[in-house]
Structure formats: structure tokens, C-alpha cells
């Protein structure tokens, strides 16, 4: 009983990330920026081929400098127009020589709600506890040395 304790989720979570922002734009506009794969790719920095279809995988190359060789596979799970979009992917699947397909994925969810002066967006990525140890360490290293810095540079460029 104790090992399967329902209180386990009270331990500091290493499994999920949750982020909430209010965007000063109508819900319809935000929905298009997320659910239209071309628009999604613009801010996410990936050149996606084809539209998002529930149950289908959309592929694309990253457009972040030095990561253009990275192919991203977004396995679209659920599309509820104007309010919910979700996909699964392999976080930090950045080595083209490795086959990540058999490894567990994380679930990324976008939840849209009307808010004062715009749209409240909640982004949740969960399932990290199932990601193999080696990948987590790899991601940790990438974050330390590369990707974070790249993103900062791009931000400066566009702003």
C-alpha cells in the first residue's frame, strides 16, 4: 500500500511543466497561430510539412540556426477547435544518427480560454519521468550549452 501511495504526486514533480500566459489577441487569432501548422512553425521555429490532423504525424526541420538538421515529429493527438490542441513528441530528439521512435514521448497540450483583454493560454508538457535517463542527461547538456543561448539570440534578432 505505501509504495503505491496516492500521495506520491505530492513529491516535487519531475514529470511535468505547466505555463500560463495571457495574450493580447482574440481567441480565434491565437487558435490559428497554434492549430495552423504553418503559423505554428513560424513562432516554434520549425518548417512543418502538411497540416495538423488528429491521429496523424506532421514532420518538419527545425529552423533554429545550428539545429537545421533536426527533424521534429509531432504526433497530433486531439484538436478541439478554438480551445484545445495536443501532440506527442520526443523531447530533445536532436541526434539524427539515433532512432528515437521506440522511446516514450511527452504530451504537449495547449489550452485556450477567454480572458480579460485577450486569451489565456496554458501550455503543459508532461511525461518526463518516463523519458530514458540517457536522454534526460542529453537534454540537460544541450540546454546548458546550446539551445537556450540560441533562443536568446533569436529573440534579440526579432525584437
Amino acid at each position: 500500500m505505501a509504495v503505491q501511495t496516492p500521495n506520491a504526486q505530492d513529491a516535487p514533480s519531475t514529470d511535468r511543466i505547466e505555463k500560463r500566459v495571457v495574450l493580447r489577441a482574440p481567441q480565434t487569432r491565437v487558435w490559428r497561430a497554434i492549430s495552423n501548422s504553418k503559423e505554428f512553425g513560424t513562432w516554434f521555429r520549425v518548417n512543418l510539412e502538411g497540416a495538423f490532423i488528429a491521429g496523424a504525424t506532421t514532420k518538419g526541420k527545425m529552423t533554429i540556426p545550428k539545429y537545421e538538421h533536426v527533424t521534429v515529429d509531432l504526433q497530433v493527438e486531439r484538436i478541439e477547435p478554438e480551445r484545445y490542441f495536443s501532440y506527442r513528441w520526443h523531447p530533445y530528439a536532436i541526434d539524427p544518427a539515433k532512432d528515437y521512435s521506440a522511446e516514450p514521448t511527452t504530451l504537449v497540450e495547449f489550452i485556450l480560454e477567454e480572458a480579460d483583454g485577450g486569451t489565456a493560454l496554458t501550455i503543459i508538457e508532461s511525461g518526463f519521468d518516463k523519458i530514458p535517463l540517457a536522454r534526460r542527461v542529453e537534454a540537460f547538456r544541450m540546454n546548458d550549452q546550446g539551445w537556450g543561448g540560441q533562443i536568446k539570440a533569436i529573440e534579440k534578432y526579432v525584437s
Partner: protein
Amino acid sequence: MSRSRSTAALRVADAVPVFVALGDETRLSLLGRLSVDGPLSITRLSEGTGVTRQAITRHLYALGDAGLVRNARRGREMVWELDAKRLEKARQYLDQIAAQWDDAADRLKAFVEDG
């Protein structure tokens, strides 16, 4: 440059045992139990689990090696408790991914608000 690289390498090496320790359901459950109920003896931790005391002991030492828990004597009893500082290290991994989502959300914000 080389200094920051070796700092990063140190941090990666530092994180490895933490992830090894967390990569097991029983060990995660033990951490959950200790974070909710506070310091507990091996007897208490193994009660009703269907896992032997020997196995629980082995898992606790694995968590101890990673610096996630430590044992202490309380009266005549040996108890195990969380080492919260080390758990913070595991959180850093998610913090960094969260920082990337912050950046992505900022770009989305600029995209929908300017367009």
C-alpha cells in the same frame, strides 16, 4: 568559454545519479512517502508494500548515494528523511525545459499580438 564548458560538464555529471535514482517506480514512491510523512523507519516504509525490507533498504541506499535522502538516528530507531537540497537539482532539468517554453510563449505572444 572553457570555464563555462567545464562548469556545465560538472553539472551534468552531478545530475546523473539523481536521474538514475529517480528512474524507478519504487524509489519515486519512497520519495513521495518521505516528502509527505516525514522521517520514517525502514519498517514503516515497507509496511503493507509487498516489497521486502531488504529491497526497500537497497532502494534507500541508492537514493542515499544520489544524495536525495539520508539516514539519522532517532532514539533507538534509524529513520530515513529527504535531502531537499539535492532534489532541487532534479528540478533544474525541468526548469530549463520550462525556460524554453517561456521563450516559445514569448515568440507566440509577439506573433499574435503584432500580426
